[in-house]
Structures are given as C-alpha cells and as structure tokens.
C-alpha cells in the first residue's frame, strides 16, 4: 500500500469539510421547519427561530389537528395513493410479464409502444381535454388512470422477470398450470422483492403528486393534502395582495405552513431509511436495462 502523500491528506481534510457542509445545507432546512412548527408565531416573525423551537408550544398543531378539512384531505391522499398504486401495479405487472416472454410474437412492437411514450407525449392541453371529456373530473380515476403505467418502472420489472429461470415456468406448465396460474402462483411469489419495490416507487410518487389533483379536482373536500399545502403556500406568496405585497401580510400562518409540511412529509420520512436503498438499486437496474 502506498503511503498517502501530504497533499492528499490535505485534500482529504478539505473534502471532509466540503461534505460536512453538504450535509448541513441539506438537513438545515428540515431542522428549521421542524423548529418553526413548534415555535410561537411571534418569535418566528421576529426571525429568532433557527435550529431549536423558540417559545415552544403545540398551539399550531392543535389548530391543524382540529381542522376537519386537513384530515379529510389527508384521508384523500391515503385513498388516492392506495387506489392509484393498485391500478398501476396490476397494469404494470401484466404488461411487464408479457414483455418478458422472449418468444412472444410481436414483442418488439409491444415494447416499442411503451418506450416511444418516454420521448414524446401528448402535452398538457390534449391530456386535460381528454380527461375532462371522459368525465373523469372530480373522481380518483383522473389521478389513477392517466398515470397507470410508468415506463421506467415497467422496464425495471420486465428486466427482473427476464432474470427468472425459465425452467421453473416450463415445469409448471407441464404440471398443467395456465399462463395466469404461472404468473399468480409461480412468478409473483418469486418476485416479492421487485413487487415490493414497485409498490414503494408508485406509492411514494402518488403520495407526493399534486398536479393531477390540482387540475381535475374542483372541490376542496376532494383534494389531497399536497393541494391543501399548495393552497396554504400560494395564499402566502400572493395573499390576494399582489399589488401591495406587504411583507408582514405574506407571512401569515408561517407556522401553519410549517406544521403542514411536517405532517405531510412525515410518512415519507418514516419509511425513508428503509426504502432508500431499493430506490437506488431500482435506478441502477433501470439505467442498465432501460
């Protein structure tokens, strides 16, 4: 082993400092938001809240917890995520399984149909017109159906199915299982890892999504919590006082925003340590095979 030179040790030191800064810059906003959510409005306004709550109180949490619309929208998010993820999983699994069968006639065309949509899409307006004229507005289907298959996830899943040993399925076929039987009783039980990963991918993205709901939901009781939060934010940035843009007015409810941000991201933050590595390996697989 070559002994590290002095300049290299200096570099290592500098590198450590730079990366520490990266960590601080990334984490500080979270710490600040959490601190704000527990602080008093007065001390936030005075700009005193940094890393620790000042004037610790749970008043804002109580206000948000008592807001029935918040809970309603939170429930909507759970419901939309569950429905959309289920639809997406069924469609993606079926298609990925079909695409993984190398002998299938017309397989190239089926792959092409999916991959082409990665490079060219219809655009916002035609999509909006379509969903509206299908009468999907104000229903969970406006969120679930137009996003039912992510081609990226499809390719990851297809790659996994292709890696399964074909002998197993052939043996099952001899034992008299149909294609559906093979998929349900052989392939899926063997694919628990990739199925779980895909459920995570889809549910995180549906949990986080806001734009389709924003476009297609007209009533506030149908909105997911992300749109609830968005409305808080836009209330703060424009505040209906675009001309005056009074700095004080635009800060109204700063800690209500903070509380909502904390509560909305809480589920993601809780599962994050466990799911992160699946995402990372999924991205690599997709990058290699896709």
């Amino acid at each position: 082993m070559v002994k590290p030179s002095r300049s290299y040790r200096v570099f290592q030191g500098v590198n450590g400092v730079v990366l520490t800064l990266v960590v601080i810059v990334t984490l500080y906003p979270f710490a600040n938001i959490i601190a704000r959510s527990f602080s008093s409005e007065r001390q936030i306004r005075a700009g005193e809240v940094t890393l620790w709550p000042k004037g610790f109180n749970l008043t804002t949490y109580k206000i948000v917890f008592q807001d029935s619309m918040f809970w309603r929208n939170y429930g909507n998010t759970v419901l939309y995520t569950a429905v959309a993820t289920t639809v997406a999983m069924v469609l993606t699994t079926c298609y990925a399984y079909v695409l993984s069968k190398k002998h299938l006639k017309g397989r190239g065309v089926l792959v092409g149909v999916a991959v082409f949509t990665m490079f060219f899409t219809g655009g916002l307006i035609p999509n909006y017109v379509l969903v509206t004229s299908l009468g999907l507005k104000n229903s969970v289907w406006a969120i679930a159906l137009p996003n039912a298959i992510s081609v990226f996830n499809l390719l990851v899943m297809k790659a996994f199915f292709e890696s399964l040993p074909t002998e197993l399925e052939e043996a099952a076929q001899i034992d008299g299982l149909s294609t559906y039987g093979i998929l349900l009783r052989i392939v899926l039980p063997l694919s628990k890892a990739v199925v779980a990963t895909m459920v995570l991918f889809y549910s995180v993205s549906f949990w986080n999504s806001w734009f389709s709901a924003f476009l297609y939901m007209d009533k506030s009781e149908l909105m997911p919590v992300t749109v609830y939060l968005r409305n808080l934010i836009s209330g703060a940035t424009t505040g209906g006082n675009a001309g005056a843009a009074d700095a004080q007015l635009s800060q109204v409810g700063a800690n209500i925003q903070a509380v909502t941000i904390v509560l909305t991201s809480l589920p993601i933050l809780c599962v994050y340590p466990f799911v992160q590595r699946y995402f990372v390996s999924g991205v690599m697989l997709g990058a290699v095979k896709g």
Partner: protein
Amino acid sequence: MSTSTTSAPPPGTRQPPSGKAPPRRGRRPARTGWRRALRRDWQLYSLAVLPLLFFLVFRYLPMLGNVIAFRRFEPGGSIFGEQWVGLRYVEMFLSDPTFWQVFRNTLWLGGLTLVFCFPIPIVLALLLNEVRRRALKRFVQSVSYLPHFLSIVIVAGITLQMLATDGAINHVLGWFGHDPIRFIQEPEWFRTVYVGSEIWQTAGWGTILYLAALTTIDEDLYEAARIDGANRWQQIWHVTLPGIRPTMITLLILNIGTFMAVGFEKVLLLYNPLTYPTADVISTYLYRAGVESNSFSYAAAIGLFEAIIGLVLITSANHLSRRTVGTSLW
C-alpha cells in the same frame, strides 16, 4: 403442489422430461404464423389488452389530440376540435409579446439549470468517491438523497419558508447587517431561487449513476497511472473522468431533451404575479392560457411548439454525441 415448486429454491433442478417437450420454446421456428402465435399465447396476449388500452387512450390519443392546435376547439365538443383553422393559433402566439417573454424566460431558466445542475452531481460524486470510510460515505449519500423523496409541494414550501423575510437566509444576512431581502416578491431573484432550490433537491440524487459508473473503472488503470507518475489530480483527469464519460454524455442528452420543459410544477408553485417577468415559462403560460382562460387551441399550439423544440433538441444532441464521442441514447 405448485406451492411446493415455488418454495424449492434452486432453479433448474427439475428438468422437464426430455421425451415429450411441451410447445417447443427452446428452438423456435424462424417465423411463426400469427394464427399459431395467437392460439399458443392467447393468454399472454390477453394480459396485454388493458395495458395497451391504457397506452392507446392516455398516451397516443393525446398525441393525436394535438390537432386542436390547428382546429377550433369548443369545450364540450370533440376532443379533436370542430373545424380547421390552419396556422391561425400559431400566428397568434408568434405575434404575442407575452409569448416571446416566456420563451426568453424558458431559455434562461433552462440554460441556468443545465449549467449549474448538470456538473454539481459529478463533482459531488468525485468527492464522495474519495471518502475512504464507508460508513461516512453511506451517511452523506443517504442525507443528500433525502430531498428527492419529498413532494415538490413540500420542497416549494420549504424553499418559501427559508426565503421568507423572517426565514433562515434573511436571518444569516442579518448577521452581516444586511436588510432583509424579499426573495419571493422580487423578479430579479427568481432565477437564483429556482436554480438554488433545484440544486438542493436534485444534486444528491444525481450522484447515484455517477457513483455506479465510478465503481466500474478498472483499478489497474489507476495502478498504471501511478506507475507513470500521475498525481491524484492527473489520475482524476486522465482515468476517472474518461471512465464516467459515457454516463455524463447520456445524462447530458437527457437534460438537453428536457431543457424546454423546465420544472413546470416547481415554477408554478414558486412564482406569483409579481415575479412573472422572470418566472413565467412556456409551460406555465400555456397552463394559464389553456386551463385557466379556456383558450385550449391556442395553448395546444404553444404546447406543440414546445414539444417539437424538445424533440429536435434531444435528437440533435444524440446525433452530435454519436458523431463526436460515439455514445448515444439510441
């Protein structure tokens, strides 16, 4: 009985009896007729029906739906519009001063994003690669991925809170005796705010592919470079960077392809009428024209224009990189 098959882990232990092979899969004939393929695999094809319907209705139909850019559309009417009006809507937006403003803003934001958000993950990956303690490396990585997993609404919310007049950034400025800046209301700050939050959100996640590419570089190359007397910098310049070049080119092409579609959702969340002069981009303008003001055909014409530029950009970037460095997406 099939469950017992699944729980038997080592695959390939059960060879099918070689005598009577089922529908021949191993050596497929050069061309199978469609009728035979359908008879044999109809169950597989049936699984593809719903997904194909999805692609047809929600991906390809909207592509065709773009014809409303050339036809007059009436809400409640056919999604393909009522009658041909030629290039009327195209001429309309080309002579619209607001369109040219949002076009310029799009180029600015897209350009700045490319200049700042593309190289930073590379630098970060190189720095992470030099970390010898694995636990530390893991920790920094995990932390830097975190913002990627949050909803864009939350990222926008955090950004606005940090930049508020009572927020953390102004707090720091206060230490230096600087008056609070109203970042959110001043048009001249929007580009900085946008690019800054974009870096915060994407830099860590962007390192994944580079780090993966770095692990594939042959250690012998470094050995050889050291023997040739290369110092650390020269090793990075002559071994590491060429090693991750294909990844860099691929991601650059992808970035150029999405150049025109600069973070539509994020702009929509961060801007307000006060910052429109610098913040309004093509996609937000067409959103307001189409969805908020019901000028669907006009907005569709702008959207089509944007999509075509995007397609031209990505194909030419791909072509260029294939000609010059031999790496390409397709």
